[in-house]
């Protein structure tokens, strides 16, 4: 009896504690001052820990094993990574750990002594696989489950839903523990890792609050993304708010922006609605490549060919095709807008790393130490080896970050920015970019604050839509360099539309640039120059601008055609990570990857829709 009452009181007091916790967090969030003109916050929403079975080897290499470690790293704590002290240098403002939902239960068993399944022969083998070869052998056997004909299945050593729930709880607990309103935001999140006919159709799932399901919906339940959205719809009915963020369209085998359901039926209004409702942005760039555009299909874009991870095509029959790239996808979406009044690919742009080392937001070129456990752990492996089934390690990049415009750094405000697409992506540096559009915006802004006030009052910010415009829109843009990074080269606006014949069209406009350059007789802006010393991997800010601001009025705008515009900001050239690696280790520069890159930021688009006609 005594025991019973003790247990009851314990349970009661924990519930009370949880309640007061929630209340005090609400109060904290409420008390943080708001900036109606919004601040830029930087973070990432794509990162694996030891709860991802394919990252476990990385974990043994890095020592970052669980979500708690990853959040500590994101907050700036120095951790031991691959035996060396390593730190992100400056903290992130927000972060979400996204372990693969498919095998979090198995991973939990693998890394938790005493947990059900820990003793299974296979997980023992996993823990004992010390050499890279042994690890790959283990992984080869495991991948039979991963790549089943009818989608992934649990292996025989799966110890049941309890382990999945324990792992999910671990992720949630870490997110709760590390949330510091006003300073550092975390999310309950995971990755839904569906592979259909070899195409990567992964999505990161991001919850707005702590009203959560007992366990995540994974590709084991279904590889059909529409089933995922239906599950998300059920969660909404229970009071959750949740987003799905697709990524790696570059490995999507043409299925990321499809014309049909996974089972072959033509997509219909239901598909359009679900996708438009739950997928508000796409991860433009990560470790396994930048998916904006590639040189092969965008010959006229002189800034194309940036970190495209071209060796992707040597693996898993990933033939390059235009339909795998984000610019194609978002312009294609305009066709549906015209036909159905709903755009399924109305996507803002965000970033992420997808590192499998637990090193959240570790995107600096001069600090890159690999992203796939033992596969790219040393300068030698990064130069010579491959990330199995994916690409050559030298083709990787450290991944990208998301910038969001929000009134304060709270879970709700950051999530809402994702939902409203008032977000941008940078290839690593903390470049800030603003984009506004409207018929009556003041041209040629000279004061940044006035430009932003004007933008919110008389126009719309990135991520929004203007319906039924009657005359040419004006765009105002502003970008500021990373406070600790390189100067800026130029701001471009990329315009995409569907012409009267139903064909995709696009145009790139240089809006404003540094160093008082003039457009030449071919209409090109001369290059900004290059200060990189390849012997020392150093650059200077003697060229470029710390801030750029300008406007563009599109005199060619056709009010009858659906159109979108987004901004792209270029940095001056700086050393690529492989150059820093070479200099640090006293090795020759690699010949088949660029020695210098122009890092960049992309704003989410602004959409223009002709006045709605009556739908059929």
């Amino acid at each position: 009896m005594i025991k019973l009452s003790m247990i009851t009181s314990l349970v009661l007091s924990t519930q009370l504690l949880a309640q007061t916790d929630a209340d005090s967090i609400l109060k904290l969030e409420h008390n943080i001052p708001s900036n109606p003109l919004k601040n830029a916050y930087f973070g990432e929403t794509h990162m694996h820990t030891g709860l991802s079975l394919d990252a476990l080897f990385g974990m043994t290499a890095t020592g970052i094993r669980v979500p708690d470690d990853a959040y500590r790293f994101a907050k700036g704590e120095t951790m031991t990574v691959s035996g060396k002290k390593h730190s992100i240098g400056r903290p992130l403002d927000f972060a979400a750990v996204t372990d693969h939902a498919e095998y979090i239960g198995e991973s939990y068993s693998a890394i938790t002594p005493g947990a059900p399944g820990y003793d299974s022969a296979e997980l023992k083998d996993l823990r004992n696989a010390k050499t890279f070869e042994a690890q790959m052998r283990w992984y080869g056997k495991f991948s039979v489950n991963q790549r089943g004909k009818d989608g992934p299945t649990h292996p025989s050593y799966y110890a049941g839903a309890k382990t999945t729930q324990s792992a999910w709880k671990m992720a949630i607990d870490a997110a709760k523990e590390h949330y510091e309103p006003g300073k550092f935001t975390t999310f309950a999140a995971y990755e839904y890792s569906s592979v259909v006919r070899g195409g990567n159709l992964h999505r990161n799932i991001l919850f707005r609050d702590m009203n959560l399901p007992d366990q995540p919906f994974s590709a084991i339940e279904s590889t059909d993304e529409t089933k995922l959205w239906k599950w998300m719809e059920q969660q909404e009915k229970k009071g959750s708010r949740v987003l799905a963020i697709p990524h790696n369209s570059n490995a999507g085998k043409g299925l990321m922006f499809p014309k049909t359901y996974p089972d072959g039926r033509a997509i219909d209004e239901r598909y359009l609605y679900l996708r438009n409702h739950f997928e508000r942005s796409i991860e433009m760039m990560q470790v396994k490549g930048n998916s904006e555009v590639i040189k092969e299909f965008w010959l006229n874009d002189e800034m194309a060919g940036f970190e495209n991870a071209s060796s992707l095509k040597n693996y898993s029959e990933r033939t390059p095709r235009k339909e795998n790239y984000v610019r194609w996808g978002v312009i294609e979406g305009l066709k549906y807008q015209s036909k159905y009044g709903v755009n399924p690919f109305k996507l803002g742009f965000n970033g992420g790393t997808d590192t499998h080392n637990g090193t959240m937001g570790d995107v600096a070129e001069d600090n890159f130490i690999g992203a796939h456990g033992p596969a790219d752990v040393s300068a030698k492996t990064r130069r010579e080896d491959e990330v199995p089934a994916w690409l050559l390690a030298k083709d990787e990049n450290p991944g990208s970050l998301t910038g969001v415009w929000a009134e304060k750094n709270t879970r709700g405000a950051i999530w809402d920015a994702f939902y409203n697409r008032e977000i941008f992506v940078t290839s690593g540096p903390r470049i800030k970019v603003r984009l506004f559009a409207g018929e009556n915006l003041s041209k040629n802004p000279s004061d940044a604050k006035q430009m932003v006030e004007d933008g919110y009052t008389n126009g719309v910010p990135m991520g929004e839509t203007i319906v039924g415009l009657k005359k040419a829109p004006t765009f105002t843009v502003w970008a500021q360099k990373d406070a600790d990074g390189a100067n800026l080269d130029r701001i471009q606006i990329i315009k995409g539309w569907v012409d009267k014949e139903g064909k995709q069209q696009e145009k790139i406009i240089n809006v404003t640039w540094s160093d008082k350059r003039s457009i030449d007789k071919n209409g090109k802006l001369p290059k900004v120059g290059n200060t990189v010393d390849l012997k020392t991997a150093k650059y200077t800010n003697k060229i470029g601008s710390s801030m750029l601001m300008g406007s563009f009025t599109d005199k060619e705008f056709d009010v009858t055609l659906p159109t979108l515009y987004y901004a792209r900001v270029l940095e001056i050239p700086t050393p690529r990570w492989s150059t820093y690696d070479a200099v640090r280790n006293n090795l020759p520069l690699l010949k088949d990857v660029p020695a210098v890159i122009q890092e960049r930021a992309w704003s989410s688009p602004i959409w223009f829709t002709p006045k709605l006609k009556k739908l059929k």
Partner: protein
Amino acid sequence: MFKRILQEPLLHFLVVGSLLFFYLSSTDTETKSQVTISQGKIKQLTAQFTKTRQRTPSDEELDALIENQIREDLAFEHGVQMGLVENDSIIKRRVQQKIEFMLNDSIGSIEPSLEDLETYLTTHKEQYTIEPVYAFRHIYINPEQHDDVNAFILELQSNNLDKSYRNVGDSMMMQSEFVDISTAHIARLFGRKFSKNLDAISLKRWQGPVKSGYGVHLVYIDNKIPKHLATLEEVETQLRRDFRVDAQKKAVNSFYDELKVQYDVKVEEGQ
């Protein structure tokens, strides 16, 4: 104090553990050892089979599963009596892991009181230093917009900046005054060099130029809380987390200390 003891999870663990021990040893009165395959175990065997084969086992298969289990249990019991466990470090290590897992599980629920945290902070104060916090005003100068930056700065400095600081200088998407801003936040907004430079200049007068990631600034520091050891309010969340991690380590240690008292531990001397 008594209440504290009652809340000590380690104590619960030890008490429950010894009760179990007495219970088990008191029931073990028969001379013949027993091997029982419980209904629960049979259900578990069936479930495992069903999961791997995607169907329920037939009667023969179930009998075979049970026979296997009986053999496993018999072999284990017998092996224990033969002293095979004694020298098997894998089994020993496994039992140790199980015990520590249970122990850690029971500690997970520790909720330190404010007093606990206060004490913890006092004993670990060096680990919790707070970098300077400022109230300051600044004027931004963008070198790209002036042919002679120094002349422009001199011209600025000849004005009464206390009054005009909001209206002079170049455009920047940044407030011109900050209150209660941490060193880390300053680094985030202006770059790490600027936050370092700020620490070196004196208060209550316009100074500069101070370099930032964007150019140079004239700066007036109204107030500065220098680098200091943190108070409880400043680091409570972090303390709470560190306290738990520490408590976990300590609990494991004291668990072993306790066991060392209960057992006579000898390390034989070498020759």
